[in-house]
């Protein structure tokens, strides 16, 4: 640790450049893999391994620095500002996909239906997989070849909405436990939050299997399939990361980390979890419900 001034300046660190190399290997491997070049998947694996090891080391360093009391109030504020605005950038990432969904539904598909010259007879309804895609099945219709069934909102998706909303409540109870220095409450509710997160993911997988095997709804099912799977898929990825983060925090809680006054690690993950929650609500409304 450098000893000048009050603000903590970390010593030179090899983690960032190694992480960058890992990311490079992952990206290069990915490009080769999707172009069916033999080495691709191995490079991806190598890259992922490097990144995972580095995350353990890097976060491990930060956690031990934090527990050693290295960070003062000002450093804490740097973390807060950057985490808050990082979540903002994540919102903008989802914004791109929501924007695409709205544009498709409000403009692209209706315009496509207006043009009799291009695809005579194409009816612009939502959901649609486009003039050449499979046709969406209407309720009470017997599915024929070249048809797909849209995902219904009031089955698994509604249940998943309940689950995520409850997890938002349980993590708040966990936070209150931490603030009251009641470790039992903290750990119980943190554990419950993780269970709910995993339950959500299991049901999401169930839903995908259902879509692929029974509804003929796939990523390739036109623009409805594309927006459906990309939006819910990226959300699921974020829930997965959020759940891993929750588990890390649980382990830290059980090790006795955090105090009622200083627990930014916990709060950052809680913010992230609420963000994932809100994105889901928007998904439920615009992807599942309003068809």
């Amino acid at each position: 640790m450098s000893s000048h001034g009050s603000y903590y300046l970390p010593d030179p660190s090899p983690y960032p450049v190694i992480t960058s190399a890992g990311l490079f290997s992952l990206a290069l491997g990915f490009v080769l893999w999707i172009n069916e070049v033999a080495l691709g998947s191995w490079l991806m694996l190598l890259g992922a391994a490097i990144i995972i090891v580095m995350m353990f080391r890097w976060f491990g360093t930060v956690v031990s620095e934090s527990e050693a009391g290295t960070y003062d109030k000002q450093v804490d504020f740097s973390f807060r500002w950057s985490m808050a605005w990082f979540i903002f950038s994540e919102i903008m990432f989802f914004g791109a996909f929501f924007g695409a969904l709205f544009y498709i539904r409000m403009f692209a598909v209706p315009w496509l239906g207006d043009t009799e010259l291009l695809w005579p007879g194409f009816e612009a309804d939502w959901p649609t997989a486009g003039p050449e895609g499979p046709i969406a099945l209407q309720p009470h219709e017997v599915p024929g070849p070249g048809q797909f069934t849209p995902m219904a909102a009031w089955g698994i998706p509604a249940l998943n909405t309940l689950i995520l909303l409850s997890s938002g409540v349980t993590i708040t109870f966990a936070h209150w436990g931490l603030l009251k220095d009641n470790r039992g409450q903290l750990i119980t509710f943190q554990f419950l939050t993780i269970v709910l997160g995993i339950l959500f993911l299991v049901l999401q997988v169930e839903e995908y299997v259902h879509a692929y095997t029974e509804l003929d709804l796939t990523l390739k099912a036109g623009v409805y399939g594309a927006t459906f799977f990309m939006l819910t898929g990226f959300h699921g990825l974020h829930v997965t990361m959020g759940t891993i983060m929750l588990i890390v925090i649980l382990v830290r809680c059980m090790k006795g980390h955090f105090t009622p006054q200083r627990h930014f690690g916990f709060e950052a993950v809680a913010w992230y979890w609420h963000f994932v929650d809100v994105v889901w609500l928007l998904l439920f409304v615009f992807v599942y419900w309003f068809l």
Partner: protein
Amino acid sequence: MATAATAHHDEHPYGIMRWLCTTNHKDIGTLYLWFAFIMFFVGGAMAMVIRAELFQPGLQVVDPHFFNQMTTLHALVMIFGAVMPAFVGLANWQIPMMIGAPDMALPRLNNWSFWLLPFAATLLLGGLFAPGGGPAAGWTIYPPLSVQGGMGTDFTILAIHTLGISSVLGALNIIATILNMRAPGLTLMKMPLFVWTWLITAYLLLAVMPVLAGVVTMLLTDRHFGTHFFDPAGGGDPVLFQHVFWFFGHPEVYILILPAFGVISQILPTFSRKPLFGYDSMVYATGSIAFLSFVVWAHHMFTVGLPTAGELFFMYMTMLIAVPTGVKVFNWVSTMWRGSMTFETPMLFAIGFVFLFTIGGLSGLMLAIVPADFQYHDTYFVVAHFHYVLFSGSIMAIMGAVYYWLPKWTGNMYNEAQGKWHFWLTAIFFNITFFPQHFLGLAGMPRRIPDYALQFTEFNVWSSIGAFGLGLTQLLFLYIVVRTIRGGKKATDRVWEGAHGLEWTLPSPPPYHTFATPPKVD
């Protein structure tokens, strides 16, 4: 204004490990600036290929497919490899010194945002050696053309993802630094304008880089995973790509120019020996420009077939940006008005900026007029316009910034005569290169085509000669910078007689760690 810094022992590893592992804002700033400089020459070499091919009509130097790769990569390299990293480099060096902070707020993250860049550049340029060559659909990678391209397009997409991570991390760090690390007493409305413009730029980065990541992800899945975002047969729309891309793209041009506004607002007062005219209005103008940048994107798409209401909305919004930009130009001119001006190299670049950027701004206003744009769209007029704002705007501001702060960074003065030669050759060759392109565009010469009709020959010859001169002149810049780093007349701490601000209270060169105890600002 402030107390002097306390000097400290410069403990750090030596050799390559110093640069790989550094957490020091000055080291990281240096890395960024050298990376940008190298990319400037790489992108410049591509421009030379383009201008060599366009020296005369017909196809002689390269084949059209390679020409397309050059126009595509020239833009991507210059935007993401040269201009953006150069400004982040300036931010790294200057922001902590200008606000009296010991370093950037998150030093390890800072190192990471830099070291992602060389890897991203490798991906971007590596595409050239892939089967089918590099990306060739233009830097805007519009589908359906970009859905058809070879592996090079995939390399580009992954490079953009990597660059995006770097930019977002860099922006977070700059925001945390500016909001959290200012010296006591340095309120927001006392911050140097370079700091202000970077704060706003950082927000633009956070808002739009993820959107770019999103849209190239859709492109990737359309290419390889069977989605139909941009395919009408599946209910998608190629115009969707253009909307999302330009939602990123227009704020991106302000990401490239706002820090330049900041630099100019530092240089002009110094050499006019007067405070900046209308400081508050400068801050508000910057904010307004940033805000408006989110509601003008479709001015890039006037000919794609938008509803009339859309065309009108985006036309008026675009023209509205001329108001805050006009405020800025007015303030810069008023800063110089009746000042005791001297014309050292940074000042020459700043004045050159004010003149030439304004020309680019006015041609932008012409392009904003929908019926006129129907004529100008995708012609050399557009190329001329954005080189006036990006070369004589952003890049000349970066050059001015380098001359302005290099004596502070190195402790040595550059050679003034050589600096002036560099400025005048750059300014003259720049105009020889790009001014004729206005006429070419108005006469109807399309951009991104390796051949042209005979009547365009003469202006193209001028343009190519100018470009070769402009390229060669930059070798002089490299020579001047290297010579200044190696030695030269010692610079004083204040360096410039009229310079004000915390960075000038530090020794030249500043010690490795500065402002360990924050200075007081009143």
